[in-house]
C-alpha cells in the first residue's frame, strides 16, 4: 500500500492523507494553539512556524508548504512533539516532508542542509562510520563553501580532535548492502 502511494505525484492526493499514511501522524488533529512555534528554538529563522506548516497541510497548500525552509532547518529537537496538546508528532512530520521533498526532487529552501545530510550518508555508506574530517571536506566541496569551518580545522587537529586519515571498518560491507537494499526499496 505504501509503495503504491509513493508512486503517485504530490498533487494527486491530499497531502494530509499522504502524511498520515506515510508516517502515521494525523495533522488534522492540530487546533492551532501555536505552542510548537512558541517553544521552537529555530522559529526565529523559519519562513513559517511549525503551527503554520500544520495549517498549510490541513488546507492542502502543497506548493506553499514545500517552498518553506521550515522542514529543512528544523533541528529535530522534538520540543514541539513533546509539548503538543493534540499529540501531533510535529517533528516526525518535518522528517516526512523532507523525505517527500527528496523523493519528488523539490528544490530545498535551505540547500546546504540537504547537501550536509547527503554527504554524511555517503560517507557512512563508504566507510561504515562517520569520518569527521572527510565530512567537512566533502561538504565544503559540494556546498561550494570552500572555506566553511576552516578556522576550526587547525585547532581541531592540534587538539587531537580530528583524525586526518580515513579508515574502513569491519561492518562496512553490510552497511553498504543496507544502503543498497533501502535504495532498491525506495525505487519500488
Amino acid at each position: 500500500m505504501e509503495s503504491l502511494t509513493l508512486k503517485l505525484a504530490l498533487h494527486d492526493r491530499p497531502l494530509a492523507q499522504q502524511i498520515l499514511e506515510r508516517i502515521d501522524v494525523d495533522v488534522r488533529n492540530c487546533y492551532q494553539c501555536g505552542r510548537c512555534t512558541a517553544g521552537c528554538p529555530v522559529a526565529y529563522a523559519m519562513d513559517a512556524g511549525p503551527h503554520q506548516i500544520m495549517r498549510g497541510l490541513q488546507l492542502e497548500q502543497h506548493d506553499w508548504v514545500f517552498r518553506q525552509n521550515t522542514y529543512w532547518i528544523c533541528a529535530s529537537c522534538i520540543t514541539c512533539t513533546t509539548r503538543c496538546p493534540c499529540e501531533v508528532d510535529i517533528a516526525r512530520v518535518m522528517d516526512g516532508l523532507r523525505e517527500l521533498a527528496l523523493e519528488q526532487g523539490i528544490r530545498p529552501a535551505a540547500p546546504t542542509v540537504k547537501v550536509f545530510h547527503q554527504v554524511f550518508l555517503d560517507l557512512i555508506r563508504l566507510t561504515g562510520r562517520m569520518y569527521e574530517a572527510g565530512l567537512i571536506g566533502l561538504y565544503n566541496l559540494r556546498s561550494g563553501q570552500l572555506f566553511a569551518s576552516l578556522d576550526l580545522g587547525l585547532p581541531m587537529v592540534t587538539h587531537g580532535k580530528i583524525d586526518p586519515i580515513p579508515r574502513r571498518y569491519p561492518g562496512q560491507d553490510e552497511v553498504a548492502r543496507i544502503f543498497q537494499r533501502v535504495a532498491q526499496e525506495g525505487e519500488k
Partner: protein
Amino acid sequence: MTRYAYYPGCSLEGTGKEYDVSSRIACEDMAIEMQELEGWSCCGASSAHNTNYDLALALPARNLRLAVEQGYDAIIAPCAMCYARFRHTAHDLRDEELRTHINSFLDRPLEGEVQIHSLVDLFSEEEKLALLKEKVTRDLSGLKLVAYYGCLLVRPPEILEPDDAEYPTMLDQIIEAAGATLVDWPLKTECCGGSLAVSRTDIVLELSRRLLADAVGRGANALVTACPMCHSNLDTRQSQINRRYGTDFHLPILYFTQLVGLAMGRGVKELLLDRHLTSTLKLLADIGVE
C-alpha cells in the same frame, strides 16, 4: 550480572574522544564492566532520520543485532544521539510488521531485544549515586555547574523515558554526588542546534550563544553535558560566538564523565581535560586541581 556492550559511536572516536576516554575511566571506577561491541557501525544520526525512515531504523538495528548475537543483555551508548536512535529503533521495531520490513535490509535479522542505556541513566541510579559519594576524594565545590541535557536524552519522553522531559534531574544529581556546586538552570533542555553546526552554522551560533549567556548570567563557571554534539557546539565554537556577537565567553564545557573521574581523583590529562578548545585548565587550577 548484566553483560554490557559498549558502543562508542563515531563522534567518540573523533571530536568526542574526551567523552570516550572519560566514559571508560568512570565506568571502571564505578564498577560497570563493559566490552566494546565488535564490528559496530554508525547509527545514522540526524542525517538518516531526517531523510530516510528505513535507513534510520536499519542502521541502528544492525548494531542492536550485533549486541544480541554477541550475547549482551544491554548496550551502553554514551553519545546522546546514538542512544536516542537506538531507543527509537527498539521502540518502533516492537511492531512485528515493521520489524520484518527493516530486517529485510539486514544481512541477518534482529531477533530479541537488549536494554539500551545512556550512561547518564546508569550513573543516576540510587546505588551508583551512593557509590560515587563514597568514592569522592577531591573537593570540587569550587565548580559551579549547570547541567545541560539538550534534546536527545529526554525527548520524546514516551521513548526515552527520562525522569522528567521538561525538568530532568539525572545529571543534576550526578553533579551533586560528585561534590560540585549545582546551579539551577531553566534552559537545561533547550537545543544547541545540534546537527545544523556545519550546514547552518549561523543557527548553532545563535542557539549556543543563548545557552552560554544564560549559564554565565546565573554564575556558572562551567557547563556539564552528556552529548558530543552539544559539547562540540558549545566548546569548539565559543571563539566564533565571541567574534560574531562581540561577547567574551570563556565557559569550560565538561563531559559529566570527566567530572565523575575528577571527583574520584583521576588526573586532568588522563581525562583529556586538556583537549577541549575552550580551556578548562585555568578554572581547574583556580580550584586547586592540577
